[in-house]
């Protein structure tokens, strides 16, 4: 025991850093007890469950879109069902950003151990054609398609266009005058509208596409008279449609949708053009067959469950349960179709008149003026009451920053608990906390935070080689 304590004896050669003080025997015992108790707590709560059955720990469910959106809602419904099927927690992680690039890339590059599944959306078939990512459907093993919604065209009820034909005539007579939206430039609903225009022999530029961040703000803009046409799916527009604020001129599907039998299809209206968004569950490539089968069966049961169908029915979304093989072929087919669309004249070589650097350029000019004015007026001079930073303080801060860097570099391999413990120990010793306080505090803090976030609140924390 004394040998154990001597590891922490003071080293005169190490000022400040690693400056643990030795302690007497009684305190020694107390400390060992606290330490043993904490380790016990840690091991019990962190769940050192090493069963061989799959799955035996929480599954991460990546949703590439933000909390509250349509994809998120479906993901959370499915995650809830999957949890019951698989008997382990299924935690939804919203890996948002980059128009879907972030989430899809993370899902494709995840460890292929079956513990990460992804809700892939139609953007998987689109983003790589636009050069935004190299990830495509080939980086995933499709498990099951769970939802499909066709595009539709909407106008305000108080507009004079009652049919698709009338709208077409107005566009023909006033090319470029009407404004439409539904999503960002090159998004699925933009492709849908452009596809319709080119099918009837018009050009993509005959309707001005105003890029909006999604269907909800586009519909709001339509209501506020800022747009003439919105293209989006029927469930997204359901409320305004039922309230008779907007009119649907047709849906781009091959047959009428079960939830909306009164809305005619483009095919019936003489336009041979169909497009829809789709969502499905996929695994990264390389998951063992036995594990992917477990996931597949669970997803199939979840997607066919009464509750899921009921939920989808109530929101007007199209439920689907397309099995793996069929889904793979579907993805291949859709991918080719989008390839030819994006290579076509409507998108290929398109230059934004008001390009992506316009706004940053304006801001840079403003920043330049600001900086000049600040220097001229001397408002940036550092305050006199703040003294110079001394060498030791500088070292303190560098160590603190270094600790965060260390955490970023090691957390993925070591896992949260170990990485956190390492940086806490370094910082405590730098702050001259006695080891009999520092070590239990470290163990308790690291395991408490892990319990709180990963187990209690089910938010993601890095899982290293130990699983915690």
């Amino acid at each position, binding site marked *: 025991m004394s040998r154990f304590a001597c590891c922490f004896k003071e080293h005169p050669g190490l000022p400040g850093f690693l400056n643990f003080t030795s302690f007497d025997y009684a305190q020694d015992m107390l400390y060992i007890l606290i330490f043993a108790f904490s380790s016990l707590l840690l091991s019990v709560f962190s769940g050192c469950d090493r069963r061989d059955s799959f799955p035996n720990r929480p599954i*991460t469910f990546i949703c590439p879109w*933000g*909390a*509250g959106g349509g994809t998120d*809602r479906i993901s*959370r419904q499915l*995650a*809830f069902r999957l949890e019951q099927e698989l008997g382990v927690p299924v935690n*939804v*992680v919203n*890996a948002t*950003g*980059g128009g879907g*690039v*972030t989430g899809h890339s993370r899902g494709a590059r995840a460890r292929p151990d079956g513990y990460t599944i992804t809700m892939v959306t139609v953007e998987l078939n689109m983003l790589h054609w636009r050069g*935004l990512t190299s990830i495509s459907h080939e980086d995933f093993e499709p498990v099951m398609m769970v939802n499909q919604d066709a595009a539709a065209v909407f106008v305000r009820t108080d507009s004079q266009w009652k049919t698709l034909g009338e709208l077409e005539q107005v566009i023909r007579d006033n090319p470029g005058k009407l404004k439409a939206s539904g999503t*960002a*430039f*090159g*998004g699925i609903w933009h492709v849908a509208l452009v596809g319709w225009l080119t099918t009837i022999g018009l050009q993509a530029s005959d309707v*001005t596409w*105003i890029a*909006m961040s999604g269907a*909800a703000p586009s519909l*709001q*803009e339509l*209501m*506020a008279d800022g747009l003439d046409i919105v293209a989006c799916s029927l469930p997204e527009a359901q*409320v*305004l449609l039922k*309230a008779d*604020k907007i009119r649907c001129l047709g849906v781009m599907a091959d047959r009428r949708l079960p939830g909306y039998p009164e809305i005619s299809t483009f095919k019936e209206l003489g336009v041979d053009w169909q497009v829809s968004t789709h969502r499905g569950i996929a695994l990264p490539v390389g998951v063992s067959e036995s594990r992917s089968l477990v996931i597949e069966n669970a997803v199939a049961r979840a997607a066919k469950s009464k509750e899921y169908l009921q939920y989808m029915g*109530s*929101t007007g979304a199209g439920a689907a349960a397309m099995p793996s093989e069929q889904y793979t072929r579907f993805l291949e087919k859709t991918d080719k179709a989008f390839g030819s669309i994006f290579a076509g004249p409507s998108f290929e070589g398109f230059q934004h*008149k*008001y390009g*992506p650097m316009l*706004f*940053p350029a304006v*801001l840079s000019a403003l920043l330049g003026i600001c900086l000049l004015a*600040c220097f001229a007026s001397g*408002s*940036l001079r550092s305050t006199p009451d*703040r003294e110079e930073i001394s060498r030791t303080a500088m070292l*303190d801060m560098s160590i603190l*920053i270094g*600790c*965060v860097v260390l955490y*970023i570099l090691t957390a993925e391999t070591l896992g*949260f608990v170990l990485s956190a413990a390492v940086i*806490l120990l370094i*910082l405590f010793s730098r*702050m001259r*906390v006695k080891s009999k306080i520092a070590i239990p505090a470290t163990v308790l803090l690291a395991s408490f*935070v892990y319990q709180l*976030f990963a187990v209690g609140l*089910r938010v*993601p*924390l*890095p899982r290293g080689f130990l699983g915690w």
Partner: protein
Amino acid sequence: MNPILTALQNVFGDPQVVLIVFLSAFFGVFVGSIPGLTATMAVALLVPITYWLDPISALAAVVSVVACAIFAGDIPNTLLRIPGTPASAAYANDAHNLTRQGKSDLVLGTALVCSVVGGILGAIVLMLLGHQLAKVATAFSAVEYFWLYLLGLSCAVVVSSGPKLNGLLALTIGLLISTVGLSAVHSKARFTFGVAELYGGINFIPAMIGLFGVSEVLNSILDSRHSKLDEKRKTRIEDRGSRTSSLLGLGAGMLFRRKGHVLRSASIGSLIGMLPGAGADIAAWVSFAVSKRFSKKPQLYGQESIEGIADATTANNAALAGAWIPALILGIPGDSVTAIVIGVLLMKNITPGPDIFIKQTELVYSIYVIFILANIMLIPVGFAAIKAASRLVRIPKAILLPAILLFCIVGSYSLNASYIDVTVMLVMGVLGFVLERRKVPLAPIVLALILGPMVEERFIQIITGSDGSFTGFFNPQRPLALGLAGVFALVWTSAVVIAIRRQAKSKRKK
């Protein structure tokens, strides 16, 4: 029977609903007080549970979590200068500076009482006028939003302490940082240097944790190395024992002294909250700025103004109820929380729409009664949270600082499970530390990060719509937009005039 009475009976008469409100209040306060965990995340976690509940209980859970989470954001904001939610960032400096003077009881008491009153007033305003006010939301097109966002950004500069020029500098820095990533409008990568993880842009939550939290940890380290103050005395300035009477008494006293201001802030909050895409964050800032305009001590704003804190906390809680109006009547979610709410409603076979006030009168009134109940519940729950959290500052700094850093890391990571977010937090922490030493305020950077992408989107939308001509910004057919542009111009001319006058005065003194 009177629908309001039925609603009261539905809510108060059902012990299950009251219990759910109580439990959700705890959950909301807990999640809201952890930086990095947002009200949206809390609500999203609740969704699977709401499946088993009847509509009123399900809504009770959501309402209660949100109402309490926004207040709880003030707790770490006051004690550690880490805003728990972006809605608290406007007064982070004021709250923390007052805490340093040992007045954390006053700040938290005021924040609690004003949040409760703001929340209740917001619910009442919308209960009485909601249906009429819903029309305002449909009047807001891209141009109106553009000017509203610019007005919000101007407020952040106006309320900042120190030279306004430095505030403007902070704002521009924030706006420039917000352009990193895939542009929402063009889907083109900017300033990403080939790092795919940066496509998502700089998330404002880790940025906020870094700017305020990490830079404050760096400041504390600097202080502890430099000052010769007795460590024990320094860490125990808070140890004054916050008794119930003092905490709530201080808050209530503040409320009675500022009755009129509280009413004004609640109205600002509900109005701004009602606009889809504006919400509690902008409401807090605008209310803070308006408060400064009417204050007798405007020089304290951005430094240690308890008046500003009172008004801003009132407004951000009042804004919450407002966001439900466009969601219920138009089915257009004002923020991500109401987007989830629409999902919950549809799941319960209740379709939002203009006739929801006619067909589902009781349900709509129940929502507002729940808002009121949740806010009342916030008093004991919030009080308990303040008591528990106040122990934090008694922990010796040597233990507390590393723990805070760990929480900053976890809060940044857990949002998106991304190390880029942790890196952003660190870089922003260092940036915040450097900027503060140069008297550049940090709060405008946070608002610029939130609003930057929205301003750009609207800017490009308008200029595409009007094909490059600036008439799109001053469209005579949109008087509301012209009005907002006028207010914007007024704010800036008055700021410039005041600055020139002050300079002239200081010259005369010399």
